[in-house]
């Protein structure tokens, strides 16, 4: 949890805490206040961890659409962008698609991952050959602050060194614990070595975008759902987590078609994502 989230949660919790301890002020309503306060806490936590569920539900309930630009609207379900042009409806939807183990080969310490890498191009080509509608696979990468990242890695390495020495000094040191700590330290050391050799540490967002067309909004939405399901099935062969994007992320991913923020703002988005 980052500092900003702690601050937001802290300040929002002050009033709720005050209401909890001031139960005697509410007389017969005391229990009701406690119940509503608990519901408020649950809602705030949902907003923090799973707003992609809450936001579309609220917008759908209120029937509110969001117009992102001329001709581009996000319907109340908040799961697609609809464009009306040339007498046709174009619905664009998004799927998350994290392929870390394929892209960041050097992160993998285990040698058997080579086989996954060898099979990946063939799998990708089979997917492209078998899909007969337009889609886009996007990888957005943003460099991390090297100094901060390195300090963080070195700090963690120091902590593991301390744990190893503490474990070694025990009367009966556990070989398994030592091995596990040593493995973790080797992973960190490998990352530190890569940075020392001039590589940039990166943040990344990966997602799939597809556009469906229809003579009505509903026809386009149905075609889009079908396309997204097919993409989910096809990409599951690459053993990756594929989930349909809904809520405010749809607004952000739509914007990424035309512009990417400068590093500092992008970093904030990555912080929110983590």
């Amino acid at each position, binding site marked *: 949890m980052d500092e900003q989230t702690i601050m937001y949660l802290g300040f929002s919790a002050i*009033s709720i805490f005050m*209401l909890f301890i001031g139960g005697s002020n509410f007389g017969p309503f005391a229990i009701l206040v406690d119940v509503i306060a608990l519901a408020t806490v649950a809602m705030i936590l949902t*907003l923090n961890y799973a707003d992609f569920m809450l936001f579309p539900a609220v917008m759908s309930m209120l029937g509110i659409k969001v117009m992102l630009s001329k001709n581009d609207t996000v319907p109340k379900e908040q799961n697609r962008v609809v464009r009306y042009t040339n007498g046709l409806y174009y619905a664009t939807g998004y799927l998350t698609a994290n392929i870390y183990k394929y892209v960041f080969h050097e992160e993998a310490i285990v040698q058997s991952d080579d086989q996954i890498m060898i099979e990946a191009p063939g799998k990708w080509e089979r997917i492209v050959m078998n899909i007969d509608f337009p889609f886009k*696979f996007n990888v957005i990468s943003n460099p991390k602050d090297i100094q901060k990242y390195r300090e963080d890695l070195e700090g963690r390495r120091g902590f593991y060194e301390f744990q190893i020495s503490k474990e070694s000094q025990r009367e009966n040191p556990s070989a398994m614990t030592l091995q596990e700590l040593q493995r973790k330290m080797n992973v960190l050391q490998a990352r530190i070595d890569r940075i020392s050799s001039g590589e940039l540490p990166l943040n990344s967002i990966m997602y799939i975008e597809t*556009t469906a067309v229809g003579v009505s909004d509903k026809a386009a939405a149905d075609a889009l759902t079908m396309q997204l399901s097919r993409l989910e099935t096809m990409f599951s062969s690459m053993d990756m987590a594929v989930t349909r994007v809904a809520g405010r992320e749809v607004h952000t991913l739509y914007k990424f078609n035309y512009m*990417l923020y400068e590093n500092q703002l992008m970093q904030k988005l990555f912080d929110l994502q983590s």
Partner: protein
Amino acid sequence: MALKIQMFLFVVLAGVSIMFAVLTYNVTNNLLAFLFAILSMLFAIIAFSTKYYTYLYMPALKMRKGTIVLNSAEPFILSPSGTSVVVREEDGIYASSFVTIPLYRSGTEMSDAEKLDMAKLFSRVLTVTKNTVKIASQVYIVNKDDYIARIRQKLDESEAKLRSIPAEPGNEKARTRAEGEMTMWHNLLNNVSSSKSEAMVSYAMVSAFGTNDEEASAIAYQRAEEIASGISAILGISAYVAHGDEILDFVQPDRSVPAETVNELIRQKSMQEGL
């Protein structure tokens, strides 16, 4: 700027929430205290939601007919030089340039070692610049709109030609010839539009912030040139900065599904279903 507004809104709303919570201690009426408690919790939720939804609050106040309008203009304009798209945001101007990556190697013709090398090279491509970069592979439907329009024109001409030949004795040969020509164009139209043809293209996108269009475009173009050189060197190909119409293929979703091509497909599908 956006961050400052977000923080300001949060502080104000959280302050109001705490104020209502304090008021519950200062009133003797239980019902009034209960109402203040409800208001306090409502403001606590609204305050927390500013973490993600500040950008929706002001437009939501001006909402009409159940639609929050974030932007009623075109999402972008093409820069006069044709090398970037320009987006006007609240805090300034962003321009994005695109690099076409003409990569035609297939995994089927690579050895296992080459496949591993390719994966490593792709990792290196992502670190080619210190700026935020998007790398995308796009499958799109080939635009046959112009081709279909030309065939339609020829079909119309052949129909007009057939109508111009009167059905009289002595014209049989000419009419048969015109009918044959018309059938040929008709068959060709059905053949061309009966199936979609897909193609794939890869590209990189980089953006730059500026105080005016020219400044942002120039920086974005410079960054795109740097990326094109880097990708060309790493992958051993000739990546280049995309211009004009090519950029629109990357950013406009409707360009990946050409209208005329799709209309023709829908028409044929409807005819097949007997609609």
